[in-house]
């Protein structure tokens, strides 16, 4: 028995020792990059983020919305595009003049512009940044492709020669970084552009980076040298905490660990409604869902989908209004274009209207030669091997998309089209679609975050996007290409609008995509947060550059604290248990020895 007691004491000691060694090592060895500034707790707002986390804060290589969003708080572009009001406002450039006839632009940099380390922002920074953005590794390369040359006329003036009149696309999305800091980084090696580099701690936006811990969180703190009037920091610190799922983020919101979250599922809203601690808001969404139909001429999907009448019949057979109401609890808008309604170039007058009509869909299919068989599904009367039986791929991680796909399958069944829903990981979907186009359809989503440009989403239907692995419909259309070429060389903004409308009309009529719906961005945040904007995508959805400059945060009773009584009780409890076990062991041991 004595040995058992000793063993118990020994094990207890091991527990405490090993936990302590590892935890102390972790406490002291956290990979915290950057400044050692302690987070100010009195106006720190922690925002939850689930989905794709950060790969890098490099504005030229990040693919994540969160990376772009954080970057937009650190680095200013030349101008801001306010998607809520469809206006262009000054950012780094205090004024500009555009000569559409000569395709030139002059930008004057705000004379007050200064980096967070005190160095003035100059035209050289702008030229250098656009050079980085135009490199092959840059995800902004296509945005800056209309910029044929950029010259610093003097320290405060930049002259741009451009091939396209749509200047706000690049001027509002290309971040300007400090040349005097970034030039010291070895730009020839891709890994140099990671997020732990010291270059990310100097910015000219309302905030600067203060901490980044891989897979855990990113923290920004107010830039003491922020200069742009109307864009000064609203709170002193903002923390972006990463979660791997909506449910874990919601748990943290309920527990008070985070103060704001966008992207709440409609079914979870009830958790926060009628609770005075939380405010629930909805904003226009930027993520839209579509049904891509494999129309690729060389594709290996069901060839009947290349028949336009079949696609039109499908568009009429799907009751989008009902699906949006059912799946999204009414928090979704039916979509009719591949651009979202808040996009400046969205065309809301596309024809024909694909009104829900089972009778008309049946009529179209019968006219196209597809007769109903005894199985309840249609086949080509002259070629019975051509059956209207398809498979639709859906990302398995999105339950709402899967539910919507199942409802679409029910709708199509009513007109004799068999649709099998296959929920797959995005990796499997990618491998099925590209390069052989082996799918029939896929139900997926895009984010329309370049709200002042038609290029990004309309460009996806070009043949070069087939090889790039972006065009899931495999759409090839010579007329579309010709109109696109005109769009790239448009000489006025009205011409851009007109040509964008034409492109949307072609897509609407040819139906490589059946646009489905655009869910509203549902946000829940602590009622202590005030002045939260309703920008498209939601205040914490990763697109609103104004969120943290406009908001205010009442900290009464909400101060993040590590030294609550609970934690001291916990430590005290652990120590008490160890002492108790040790004492009991010694007592029992002595008693045994005496016996």
């Amino acid at each position: 028995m004595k040995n058992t007691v000793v063993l118990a004491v020994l094990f207890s000691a091991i527990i405490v020792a090993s936990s302590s060694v590892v935890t102390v090592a972790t406490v002291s060895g956290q990979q915290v990059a950057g400044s050692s500034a302690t987070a100010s707790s009195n106006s720190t707002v922690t925002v939850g983020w689930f989905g794709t986390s950060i790969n890098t804060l490099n504005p030229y290589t990040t693919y994540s919305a969160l990376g772009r969003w954080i970057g937009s708080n650190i680095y200013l572009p030349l101008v801001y595009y306010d998607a809520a009001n469809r206006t262009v406002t000054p950012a780094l450039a205090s004024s500009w003049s555009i000569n559409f006839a000569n395709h030139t632009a002059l930008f004057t940099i705000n004379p007050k512009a200064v980096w967070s380390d005190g160095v003035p922002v100059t035209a050289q920074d702008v030229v250098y940044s656009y050079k980085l953005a135009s490199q092959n590794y840059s995800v902004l390369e296509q945005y800056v492709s209309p910029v044929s040359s950029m010259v610093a006329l003097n320290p405060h003036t930049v002259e741009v020669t451009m091939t396209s009149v749509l200047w706000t696309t690049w001027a509002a999305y290309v971040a300007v970084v400090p040349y005097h800091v970034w030039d010291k980084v070895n730009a020839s090696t891709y890994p140099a552009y990671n997020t732990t580099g010291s270059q990310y701690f100097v910015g000219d936006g309302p905030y600067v980076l203060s901490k980044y811990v891989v897979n855990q969180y990113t923290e920004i703190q107010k830039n003491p040298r922020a200069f742009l009037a109307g864009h000064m920091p609203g709170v002193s610190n903002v923390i972006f905490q990463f979660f791997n799922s909506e449910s874990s983020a919601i748990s943290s919101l309920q527990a008070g660990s985070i103060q704001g979250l966008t992207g709440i599922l409609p079914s979870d809203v009830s958790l926060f409604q009628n609770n005075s601690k939380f405010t629930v808001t909805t904003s226009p969404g930027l993520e839209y869902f579509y049904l891509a139909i494999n129309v690729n001429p060389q594709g290996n999907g069901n060839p009947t989908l290349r028949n336009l009448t079949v696609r039109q019949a499908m568009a009429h057979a799907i009751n989008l209004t009902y699906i949006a109401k059912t799946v999204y609890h009414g928090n979704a808008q039916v979509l009719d274009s591949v651009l979202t309604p808040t996009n400046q170039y969205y065309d809301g007058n596309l024809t024909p209207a694909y009104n829900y009509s089972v009778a008309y869909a049946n009529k179209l299919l019968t006219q196209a030669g597809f007769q109903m068989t005894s199985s309840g599904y249609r086949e080509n009367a002259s070629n019975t091997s051509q059956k209207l039986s398809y498979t639709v791929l859906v990302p398995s991680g999105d339950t709402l998309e899967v539910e919507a796909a199942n409802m679409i399958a029910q709708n199509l069944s009513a007109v004799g089209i068999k649709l099998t829903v296959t929920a797959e990981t995005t990796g499997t979907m990618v491998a099925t679609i590209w390069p052989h186009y082996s799918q029939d359809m896929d139900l997926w989503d895009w984010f329309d975050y370049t709200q002042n440009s038609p290029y990004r989403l309309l460009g996806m239907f070009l043949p070069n996007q087939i090889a790039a692995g972006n065009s899931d419909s495999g759409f090839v259309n010579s007329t579309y290409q010709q109109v696109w070429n005109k769009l790239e060389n448009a000489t006025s903004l009205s011409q851009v609008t007109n040509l964008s409308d034409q492109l949307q009309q072609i897509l609407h009529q040819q139906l490589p995509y059946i646009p489905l719906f655009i869910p509203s961005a549902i946000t829940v945040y602590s009622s202590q947060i005030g002045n939260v904007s309703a920008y498209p995508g939601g205040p914490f959805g990763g697109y609103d550059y104004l969120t943290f400059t406009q908001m205010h945060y009442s900290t009464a009773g909400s101060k993040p604290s590590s030294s609550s009584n609970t934690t001291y009780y916990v430590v005290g409890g652990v120590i008490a248990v160890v002492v108790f076990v040790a004492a009991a062991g010694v007592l029992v041991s002595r008693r045994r020895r005496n016996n």
Partner: protein
Amino acid sequence: MGWAGYLLKRVAFAAVSIFAIVTFDFFLFRLMPGNPIQILYRSPALSPAQITSLKSQFGLNLPLYQQYLLFIRNSFTGNFGISINYLQPVSQVLFPAILNSLVLLIPANILAILLGVFAGRYAAWKRGGAADGIITGSSMALFSIPTFWLGGILILVAIFTGTLPVSGMYTLGAAYPSPLARFSDLLSHLILPLITLTLVLFGQYAVIMRNSLIDVLSEDYIIFARSKGARDAYVMRKHAMPNASLPMISIIAVNLGNTFAGAILTEVVFSWPGIGYLIYESILARDYPVLQAAFLIVAIAIVAANVCADLLYSLIDPRVRYS
């Protein structure tokens, strides 16, 4: 075969096992549908030339055998490459995650082993009684309960009572007046995932200990020891427990390695930034370099634990060495 020979044989076998596992993993990850560039960089803004450029930056354009040879060569030098997802050296991403996992795994395993052994022993001793029923029943239940469900229940309780944090390792944005305060904060975040993992592991230890001990207690030498007049505690300690511990050593050794991978669910439920969470994210992103390195570490942990079990076995039961 002598002790040194036996040791050499086990280590050589372990090295071959690790090499085989790593090779298998390398090709397995690439058999997963989809490539990381297309998954991560799905954007209409990217041209085919850029996609090709991104692939070449991560060596994904090389023939598979060349990628494999590079991986093997670099692994020997401790260079696991650059993470495709995080754009950082894999070691900078992986090792902090391992350290975070150890914070959770070490106490959870020790607690589960201790509780399991003592509960199993007590149940075996009180076989057929109420205590046995309670311990065996609860052990089977805990062994069967899905981790995410147990974690979810604990989270609900924590939210309802408002006592403990439910995610992460620290209170973000908190100012720590002292290292003790930071340590306390870590402990408070540790409690829920620790309880979850401990309970999940506890069940099987308790059941195996109980069953093993019941087998041993029915052996002739135990009856003989009792007939000699030896006290129950003495019989248990000197004769029953050492022999009943042999299966426990196996299961503990195997579990020590497996819990690295098995903690994935616990880490995901509580957003604990450990290796499980990292593997989960990396599988979704097809981040080959991180996956290769992570599974190499997991493979080494599992194989090393098995070697240790073999060696312990041979120490406890010398017949093993010569079989």
